[in-house]
């Protein structure tokens, strides 16, 4: 027994005073070492710009100089005087409504079609509808600039073949937003349909079978079983759609040749931020646009989620 005890004593490490600092703290520090690469990048490229741009938004900057501190003047001017910012929010809202009321029903209908057992070449069809989503926004904008061209465009050519006069899609304040919405439909209906399709495939077939055996019509099955069970996907898609509407930039910017469309008809908040910051060099003001836009998107999303919670309780 004694010899056993002395053997134990022999394997005990030297006294604490001889253990290195790293040895004593290794277990505590190792997780932070592993996290460090991400944290450093996050701090440098996210946290620092977020803080710095907020400070920038409190300054009047119109050159490479540091600018003059003006407190909340940029925000006050944006909210109380800047009609263009207001117009950009209205445009984003219109596009968002089109997303909810046009894009999503079409996406759902497409998902139902793609989920149909009678559809042949289902994988090819899914891939085809998903292609616009993974196509470069620049390429899409360039193609649609040609499609919408008044004189030589594909769309007016087709409309002309049935006797419809050429429509100035990109030139008229009345037609610019419909043109942008059409592009949005082309890009996002397919990808949203895949979200719905994923949701449809999680709904147990037995539920629908049971309803049908009880005499429910297909419409009744959809209305009472399929659609309610798709609620999480619907919330997800609508939330993404609304946020996407407020952050839309590339498509509108390129489709309208770097402009905001006739009479600002397709001016989007991010495009306005870009215009003020990069074209006009009003960096402080552009930073304020960014912050205000973030607040608005957060508020809209919170309201939306609250409404969905109420819907969920029903």
């Amino acid at each position, binding site marked *: 027994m004694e010899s056993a005890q002395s053997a134990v004593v022999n394997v005990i490490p030297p006294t604490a005073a001889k253990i290195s600092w790293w040895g004593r703290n290794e277990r505590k520090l190792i997780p932070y070492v592993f996290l460090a690469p991400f944290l450093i990048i996050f701090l440098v490229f996210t946290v620092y710009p977020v803080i710095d741009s907020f400070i920038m938004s409190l300054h009047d900057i*119109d*050159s*490479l*100089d540091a600018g003059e501190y003006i407190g909340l003047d940029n925000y006050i001017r944006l909210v109380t*005087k*800047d009609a*263009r910012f207001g117009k950009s929010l209205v445009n984003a809202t219109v596009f968002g409504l089109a997303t909810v009321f046009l894009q999503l029903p079409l996406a759902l209908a497409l998902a139902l079609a793609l989920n149909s057992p009678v559809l042949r070449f289902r994988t090819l069809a899914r891939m085809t509808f998903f292609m616009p989503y993974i196509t470069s926004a620049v390429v899409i904008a360039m193609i649609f*600039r*040609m499609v919408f*061209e*008044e*004189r*030589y465009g594909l769309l007016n050519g087709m409309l002309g073949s049935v006797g419809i006069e050429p429509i*100035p899609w*990109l*030139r*008229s*304040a009345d037609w610019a937003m419909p043109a942008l919405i059409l592009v949005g439909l082309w890009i996002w209906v397919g990808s949203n349909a895949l979200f719905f399709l994923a949701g449809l495939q999680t709904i147990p077939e037995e539920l629908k079978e049971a309803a049908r055996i009880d005499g429910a019509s297909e419409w009744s099955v959809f209305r009472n079983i399929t659609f309610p069970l798709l609620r999480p996907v619907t919330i997800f898609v609508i939330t993404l759609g609304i946020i996407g509407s407020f952050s839309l930039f590339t498509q509108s910017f390129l489709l309208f*040749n*770097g*402009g*905001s469309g*006739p*009479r*600002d008809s397709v001016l989007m908040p991010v495009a306005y931020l870009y*215009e003020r910051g*990069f*074209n*006009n*060099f009003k*960096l402080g003001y552009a930073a304020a646009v960014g912050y205000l836009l973030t607040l608005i998107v957060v508020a809209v999303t919170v309201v939306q989620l609250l409404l969905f919670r109420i819907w969920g309780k029903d």
Partner: protein
Amino acid sequence: MANKTLSRRDFLRISAAATATTALAGVTGLAGAAPMPQAEEIEILEWAFANNRIIWQEAVVEQFFKEQYPNVTLTIENIPYNDLWDKLQAVFVAGSGGPDMADIAIHVWRRFARGEVPFWALDDRIGDEKDNLVDGSALAPWRANGEVYGVGNEVNTVLMYYREDLLSEMGLDGAAPQTWEELAAMGEEIMAAGDRKLICMPDNTADYLEQMLVQRGGNFFDEEGNPVANSDLSAETLAFQQDIVNRGIAMLSPGGDPYTEQYYAAMKEGAFLFQMGAPWYQGFMKNNNPELEGMWRMRLLPTWGDGVGHLSVQHGGTGMAITNQARENTLEPAWELIRQCNLTNEGALLGFTLQNLVPTYTPAWEDPSFLQLQDPYFGDQLPAEWNFKAAEDMVVANSNPDWQIMVETLIRLAVAPVLVEGANAQESLNAAVEEFEFQR
């Protein structure tokens, strides 16, 4: 930080240091019977946006610059037009990451021309050569706070171009109309002869409005920098554009402006028979519609009925500049490259033969190769002759740091609504200037 000036003293100091280092190294080498040391390898990075200018600068490097600086390598990154300005702005704000040199378009230069200018001032280096340059095209556009920060190589005389072949078929002479009113009258004849139009009026750029306005004595800004884009003259000019569109003489530019694929398609089709543009625009015509070689002719701009009007107007142009982020060992070769491109007969004439751009360096004008060059695209006309005539009566628009805001506002609230939707020209221009005052 104060504006940096690349003075003679700076260059002397750098050159002396380089020379001393080389000499010392040479002596050491001889003493040790070691191989001669190589000159320091220097890489200059330049950001540019125009293929034709890149070809020209690389040709200058290959033919002349390399002899003097065999140890210097020039790398030119070709960056899309709009991206270039965003990237430059980002690196200037960041204070690092920028190139040693940049090609800067006149219109964009203005946004860098306030506060601390992020380029080296070149006045001391240009020295007396300034007397050999066309100031309005070579230096004035890149001047800020009394200093010159870039050198432009081209005299951007806007000319009128017309389809000689199609007009001849109609029994018309494109060189005949001397005023815009006479040109509009010719437009009636063209319209009566078929589906073709006189000219395109762009609704997505204010280029034509500015050119026609400045040509007849107006401006977007007065000399004190006040906005005057809603002057009576401006309203009359825009109303004239609207009138010829409404009468069917002119068409709206396919694609919105004269730089789109749709516009070049219409040009190829012969949908319009006249267009305006600076010499650099001739490159766009040739690149996009080479098959129209020999069919176009150039001429001076028509004046206005009241006898007022210059025969040409300055439009566009690009200058070479050294950024304030240039590394010290690149300063001297960078300046030397600018000098060889812009302030030597060889560089200037190379630019002319490659690009049809009339050099701003006037001694090059004496060279027979410059005077005698014929351009087959324009029926073997002599570009030098026409550009000389234009340069004699070329007017330059007043510059302003807020020019970009003004142009964007005018397109949005005046040019497009007036030409496309038939809005009133004066009211639209008033609204645009009011909005400009808010936005600036």
